[in-house]
């Protein structure tokens, strides 16, 4: 009786908390809305959205045009059901690099200091997560049913599957978030390999074994849910997720910052030693610190690109090569955005910059994660052994190198007007990407590509 009374009071307190939280968020969003839209802008925006909807979906017959795509996706979903069973949890894992999956903020933590069992609070938040997921999947499923030829039984099957996996992944995400980065990477790699196997050997047994293991893991881990939990890390990540409202942050120009986390390197004696008196040494350290602080984000991007490559390598050659070109483009953009951001972050913002040394040191750091992309290419090479592989691989390597150097030099050019790149360089480098995409269909393009690689260094001379 005492416990049920406590449970009821806990539910009331939690609902009170959620209600006030929603009210505060609504108020913030309303302020942003008023800042962003006036009456005239709002009316015009509604007209534009309405016109686009009519143009695309009614007059443009967009739905008929993408019907084939939906039919293909439906066939894939039926054939590869058990692959999706093992692939979908990977997205949960990638998310768990930065959040524990259950939104246990400081407010929830304070609730546990009142006479509310921590497990009850956790479960209440978890149930909220599941309800939210159910609503999203139902909306998505209903939209698919109404606007696509996808069959109703398949939609229901997948809505149930997504929800089931969402529930089953709650505890793994919670525990995964606590792991050291190497542990996280090891488990992610295991999942990627599992999915490769699941794709190569379309197997009911791999999927069923995976689900069984997941259920067993949940049963065994549930009693030890709060063992080894760093509550500071959990509440910091959840507070950030809850209140870092991107639109509000952008409109108000106020950044919500995460609490500082202390590096494991700081305890090592060699880390404290004075640097050799050269800029490269200190800039390497600055990059180390910066990348460490942003490692989750970097790994999410790299992980997503890797997953894309591992999937496409088994679908179609041109698609895989397109994926490689896209990976090079996205990865180099990531490096460039880190370069720009580094200059305006912390103490570096107040100091003079030697941009060339910053660039050189960053280039060295950028190579390490990029090596992982060799693995899907190795699989591609295994299935497409030919003389053309060598020039293709050379073009991939050099395209990456040229593109990243070119993009970084463009950033430097914005600060140092005396150094200008030749416009031809950009044209040639992007030409290499195109050559790469079509290199399997037209292998002779690779010869042209190798020629371009030879001439680019001449064009890279500065004015």
């Amino acid at each position, binding site marked *: 009786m005492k416990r049920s009374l406590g449970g009821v009071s806990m539910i009331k307190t939690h609902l009170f908390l959620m209600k006030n939280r929603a009210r505060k968020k609504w108020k913030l969003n309303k302020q942003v809305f008023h800042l962003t839209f006036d009456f005239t802008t709002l009316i015009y925006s509604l007209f534009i959205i309405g016109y686009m909807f009519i143009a695309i979906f009614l007059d443009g017959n967009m739905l008929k045009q993408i019907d084939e795509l939906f039919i293909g996706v439906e066939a894939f979903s039926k054939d590869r059901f058990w692959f999706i069973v093992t692939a979908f949890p990977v997205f949960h894992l990638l998310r768990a690099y930065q959040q524990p999956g259950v939104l246990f903020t400081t407010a929830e933590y304070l609730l546990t200091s009142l006479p509310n069992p921590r497990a009850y609070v956790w479960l209440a938040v978890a149930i909220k997560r599941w309800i939210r997921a159910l609503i999203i999947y139902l909306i998505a499923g209903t939209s698919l049913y109404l606007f696509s030829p996808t069959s109703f039984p398949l939609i229901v099957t997948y809505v149930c599957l997504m929800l089931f996996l969402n529930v089953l992944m709650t505890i793994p995400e919670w525990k995964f978030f606590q792991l050291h980065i190497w542990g996280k990477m090891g488990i992610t790699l295991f999942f990627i390999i599992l999915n490769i196997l699941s794709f190569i050997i379309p197997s009911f047994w791999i999927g069923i074994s995976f689900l069984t293991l997941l259920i067993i893991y949940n049963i065994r881990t549930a009693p030890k849910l709060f063992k080894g939990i760093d509550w500071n890390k959990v509440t910091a990540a959840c507070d950030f997720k809850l209140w870092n409202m991107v639109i509000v942050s952008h409109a108000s120009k106020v950044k919500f910052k995460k609490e500082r986390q202390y590096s494991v390197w700081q305890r090592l004696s060699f880390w*404290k030693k004075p640097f050799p008196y050269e800029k490269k040494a200190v800039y390497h*350290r600055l990059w180390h610190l910066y990348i460490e602080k942003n490692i989750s984000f970097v790994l999410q991007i790299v992980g997503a690109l890797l997953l894309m490559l591992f999937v496409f390598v088994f679908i179609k050659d041109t698609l895989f090569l397109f994926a490689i070109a896209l990976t090079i483009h996205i990865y180099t953009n990531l490096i460039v955005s880190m370069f720009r951001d580094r200059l305006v972050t912390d103490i570096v913002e*107040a100091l003079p910059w030697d941009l060339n040394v910053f660039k050189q040191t960053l280039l060295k750091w950028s190579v390490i994660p990029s090596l992982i992309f060799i693995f899907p290419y190795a699989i591609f090479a295994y299935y497409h052994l030919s003389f053309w592989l060598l020039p293709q691989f050379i073009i991939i390597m050099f395209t990456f190198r040229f593109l990243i150097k070119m993009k970084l030099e463009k950033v430097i050019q914005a600060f140092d007007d005396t150094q200008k790149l030749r416009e031809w360089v950009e044209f040639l480098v992007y030409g290499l990407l195109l050559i790469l995409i079509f290199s399997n269909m037209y292998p002779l393009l690779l010869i042209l590509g190798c020629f371009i690689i030879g001439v680019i260094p001449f064009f890279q001379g500065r004015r």
Partner: protein
Amino acid sequence: MVSLQVDQVTTILDDKELIKEVSFTLREGEVLALVGHNGAGKSTLMKTIMRMLEKRKGTITIQQYDQDEQFLSFKKHLSYLPEEPILLTELTVMQHFQLYAMSYDMDEVLFNQRLDRFVKGFELTTKLQAYPEELSKGMRQKVQTICALLPDVPVLLIDEPFMGLDIYAVDYLLKLVKEKVEQGTSILLTTHQLNQLQTLADRFLLLEHGQVKDEGAIEQFETITRGRFHD
């Protein structure tokens, strides 16, 4: 010779004019005190000169280097001592000093000589291997002060330099600032400690709600403040 020229600078944030059409010059070896009420725009002006905040209009030049056209060279001629230390948690005190020295291309021998002197003067000899989190607030301020004073630059921006420093450190800092001035460094400083102003500054610039309200010789500033208090 003019070291720093600020001309019609306006800084806007969230549609609010934080600084409006501020103009002034700072000559070689001159100390200009930036004074005003809380929220007048003193720190904002300093951050705008540093380009930590983007100006909407106006020009800022250090010697012949324009902030917009030659930003990299501009930065090398400027050192900044912020009100709150901006030290990295992950670097030791010594590593911070090295970072500053190398960023300003300081000669290693000169760096070591100067560091030895400053560290002794600010009593941080035993703290070189410590991380900022292991230091008291005052010690962190000392570290930041040394960092800003290490390089030889034409312009030094100092925002509330005496906050958190003990009386010995204040004395030592005053001595170092005077040395810098004698060597030709121009200093733009903000402080609420009016008793230090007379000792240090040659001129004052009074900001009110982001605009220049008054400027002149430091002796005139004492008259203005006396007048305000007795109104």
